[in-house]
Structure formats: structure tokens, C-alpha cells
């Protein structure tokens, strides 16, 4: 019986003009071009970071001096610290509020309006949010500082946490939570002991997302920063605008190295949780 089936199948396959799915054929070309497009600028940045001379265009010999300068750059160091602090604070706020909001939306309401409202900050162009917050802090008389950036980042970060948590919850059914309630647990206990653990990976993913977004976020920070607050992107912006030394290239190389490590670790972690 089985033989006949496979025989028919293979005969059918032999007579079709459809070639097997694996293999790229001509698709190698766009893939290679894309890889070049994405990585040549990065290669240039990394390469010139070892350039001994100050020019971005001529090679004067190999040297680590720009890395040394990077390490000693006080302004840059301060900006990195500021960015990290803001990102950490914004992550905490956004994760807490976003998780609550995400659970609430997934389990307790079917209102489309509320759903759209929850996603609003992610859909609005960041420029609009930025000027709105500039105006808001101005009118409310709140002096701009690292705190205002933190609040701004938390506001738009929450939307991302909501998205991730909701996605996770709408997939799964609520029977575990219902069972918990049937057994007498109050809402709060159910939330802490049943719901939270089940969405934990989503919460963590959301938190990571907000953290990285906040670190790299430029537009909103630029508009809501106080006169003396500098986040990393703001400092890089003034470095790029006012004439650059290869110190920026050194910074770029360090950032690329960090991103590679982070993304690889995250990808491995995701694959491990999927397997388990």
C-alpha cells in the first residue's frame, strides 16, 4: 500500500516542471547586493576608526588612538551614563504600565477605540510626539531635564510593551486564569501567580525592546532635553554636525560590536525557549 502511494507521489513529482524549493538560483544576486549595501558603510566606519590621521578620506597608518580618545572623552562618557539611566527608568515605567494595560486590553475589553488609543504613541510620527511634549512641558512649566526625556520615552515605550503582551495573551486562552478564580483566588492573586508567569517572556521581550529603543532614540530626546542634558544620540548629533574626528568611527565600531553580541545572545535565547 505504502509503496504505491510513494510511487505515485514520486511519479507525480518527476513529471512536474516545478523545481525543488531549496536553493536560491538567481536570488543570490539581490541577497549579495543587499549585504553589500548594508555593510559597506559599516565596514568603512570600522576601517577608518583605525586610521592614524584625522581625515575621513585619507589613510595615514594603523593606530588605536581614537579608541584611547574615546575612552577619555568625558562628555561622551557622561552622555552614555545619562542615556543608560534614562533607558533604565523608562523601561521600568513602560514595562509596568504596559503590562497592566496589555493584560487589561486582552482580557477585559473588546473596545477597538481603547486598543487604538493604546497603540497611538507607536503610530504617531516621533516628530509630532516630540513637539507635543515640548509644548506640554513648556505650558505646564516643567523645566526640561533628563526626567522629561524619561517620561517621554516611557510614554512611547509603553505602546510597544502593550503590543507584545497583548499579542502573547490573545493567542492563549484564559482557562488557566478562570480556573484560578474558580478555586477562590482574587483578581490580584490570579494576576501575580497565573497571568504574569505565563506572559513573562513577552514582558521581558517588551522591556528589552523599550530599553534599546530608548538608548537609540534621538528625535524626542532632542526636543525634550534640558539645556545641560545630553543623551548619547544628542552628543553624537552635535559631533556629526560640527565636524568630526575618527573618534566617531571608534564609537561606531564599539556600538556595532555591542549590537552583534546582544543580537546573537538574544537570538540564541529565543531559540532555546522555543525548543523547551
Amino acid at each position, binding site marked *: 500500500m505504502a509503496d504505491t502511494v510513494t510511487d505515485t507521489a514520486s511519479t507525480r513529482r518527476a513529471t512536474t516542471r516545478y523545481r525543488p524549493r531549496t536553493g536560491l538560483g538567481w536570488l543570490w544576486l*539581490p541577497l549579495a547586493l543587499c549585504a553589500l549595501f548594508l555593510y559597506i558603510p559599516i565596514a568603512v566606519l570600522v576601517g577608518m576608526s583605525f586610521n592614524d590621521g584625522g581625515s575621513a578620506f585619507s589613510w595615514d597608518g594603523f593606530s588605536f588612538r581614537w579608541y584611547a580618545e574615546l575612552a577619555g572623552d568625558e562628555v561622551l562618557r557622561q552622555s552614555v551614563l545619562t542615556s543608560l539611566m534614562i533607558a533604565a527608568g523608562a523601561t521600568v515605567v513602560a514595562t509596568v504600565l504596559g503590562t497592566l494595560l496589555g493584560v487589561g486590553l486582552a482580557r477585559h475589553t473588546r473596545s477597538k477605540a481603547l486598543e487604538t488609543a493604546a497603540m497611538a504613541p507607536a503610530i504617531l510620527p516621533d516628530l509630532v510626539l516630540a513637539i507635543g511634549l515640548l509644548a506640554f512641558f*513648556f505650558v505646564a512649566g516643567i523645566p526640561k531635564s533628563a526626567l522629561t526625556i524619561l517620561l517621554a520615552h516611557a510614554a512611547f515605550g509603553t505602546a510597544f510593551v502593550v503590543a507584545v503582551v497583548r499579542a502573547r495573551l490573545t493567542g492563549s486562552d484564559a482557562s488557566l486564569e478562570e480556573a484560578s478564580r474558580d478555586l477562590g483566588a482574587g483578581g490580584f492573586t490570579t494576576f501575580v501567580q497565573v497571568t504574569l508567569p505565563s506572559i513573562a517572556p513577552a514582558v521581558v521581550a517588551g522591556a528589552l525592546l523599550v530599553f534599546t529603543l530608548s538608548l537609540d532614540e534621538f528625535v524626542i530626546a532632542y526636543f525634550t532635553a534640558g539645556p545641560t542634558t545630553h543623551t548619547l544620540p544628542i552628543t553624537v548629533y552635535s559631533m556629526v554636525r560640527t565636524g568630526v574626528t575618527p573618534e566617531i568611527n571608534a564609537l561606531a565600531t564599539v556600538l556595532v560590536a555591542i549590537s552583534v553580541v546582544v543580537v546573537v545572545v538574544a537570538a540564541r535565547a529565543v531559540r532555546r525557549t522555543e525548543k523547551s
Partner: protein
Amino acid sequence: MVSSPTTVPGRAPQRGRARGRRGRLGRLVEPTALLAPGLIFYAVLVLVPVLLVGAYMFATRGRFGGVEWTFTLDNFGRLFDPLYLDVLQQSVLIAAAATGLALLIGYPTAYAISRLPVRWRTVALVLVVVPFWTNFLIRTYAWIVLLNSQGLLNDALVGTGLIEERFTLLYTPGAVVVGLTYAYLPLMILPIYAAVEKVDHELVEASANLGANRFRTFLSVQLPLTLPGTITGCILVFVPSLGNFVIPELLGGGKTVMVGNLVRDQFLKTQDWPFGAVIAMVVVVLLLLLFGLQAWVTRRVEGAPRG
């Protein structure tokens, strides 16, 4: 005899009694506790600012920023000046060009990745995403170096004899398009990849078995099925491109003014906040229309009965 799950010895069934005790209002406690904090936060930090920008549209500018709350419709009148309509048009064109270029590069790439052996796909996706996690300003700076008339691209072109004289690639609208495409390309590739991967290959095989060649199969099966993902990718590139001001400033040399630059200048340079608010709102309306379009297309593609 199987005991019902609700009759645990010593404990009365809680559900009905608990609800009854708390009443209808009681049932709102949990949703409120969950929804309220986030929504209030949003109301203060998102809704109020956006409403404020909306209100600013009707106010008069103060000399050093801020507004005088004198009602006026002048700001709208200024918007219809052909100059600003031109800027809007140029912005849409540049954003569209960037989206088109990203699509041109991104779709084949996403498709190619989906055809790689499985363990290579993750590697490829990681490679696509890594540049994206590098600081966006630095990535733009890389193009300033590359496209410069003294820079490497010119070096290569002149060195290999492809062109006679160095020419300026930088500080043109073209450079801005390239910069925007580069910045947001991963946002195009990822949704398309997700869509392509989901395409049921049985359908593709069936189409082939029915006699369609590869191209026809692509047009009638693959393309429509990946359309929602493709549109998501296009929107993810178009929206930030339209409102961008950094890339036009750095790569456009102050000569290419896009809508984002206009808004930024009104708020931080010329201090004409009401006019800036009007321009910003126009962009928001434009984008809302775009989202509406996307939702409509998605409904058509996913909801329509298969013919």
C-alpha cells in the same frame, strides 16, 4: 463517583458567591486597576500634547517661542503658499522613493532569505538587524563619508575609470533617498520575510502543477498572499521617512528641505510654533489616510473569498 471540581470538601463554590458579594461595580475593579494607570499616563503624556499641538494651530506666535493665545486662521493660510505645498510634495516624493528603493532591495532579499536552509535563515536575519541596532546618526554619517566628493565612492568610480571627474553625490535629494532607505531597510525586510515564510508552499506547488510557470505563480499566488506584509513593510519605511529631519539635514546639506525640517525649524529655529503645529498636523492626517488604506487593503486580501 467523580466529584465535581467545584465541590472541594470544606469549601463552598466561590464563583457565584464572590460575584454576588461584589456586585456589578465590583467587577470593574480589576479592569480599572489594569487599564487605568496606563491610560492616565497616556492621557497626560500623549493625548494632552497632541491636543495642545492641535490648539496651537489656531494661535499666534510669540517672538521667542511659545504662543500668544490670540485666535487666528492665518497659519492655515500660510500653508497653502505654493512654497510649502512644494515642500510637502517633495517630502512625499522622497519618502516614496525611499520606500520604493527599500522595496526593490528588500523584497528579493526577504524572499531569498526564506529560501535559505533553515539554520542560515536566523543568521541572515541577525545580519539584517545588526546595522539597525547601531546608532542611526552614526550610520547616516557613514554615508556622508562614502558619498563625499573626496570620499570612497568617488575614489572607486574614478579609480576604475567608470567616470572621468569626481562628482557630488552628497547634498542632493538622491543622497537623502539613499540615506533614508539605508536607515529603514530592515523594517521592510522583516515583515516581508514573515509574510513570505507563511505562504503555504502547497499552494505554490499546486499552482505549478496546474501548469503556471514560475512568474505567473509569483504574480497570482505569492504576491497577493504577501501583500499585507509588504504593505506593512512599506508603511514602516514611509512613515519615519516622511517625518525625518536628521537625514535631509545631514545628507541634504541644508538644500533639501523636507516636512520634518520645516517643523523642526519652526519649533527650534524661527520659533513659529503655531505654523509648525499646522504642518505637523497635516503630516498626521496624511498618515492616518495611509493607515486607513492599509486596513482596507488588508481586509480585501484576507477577507475576500478565494475565487
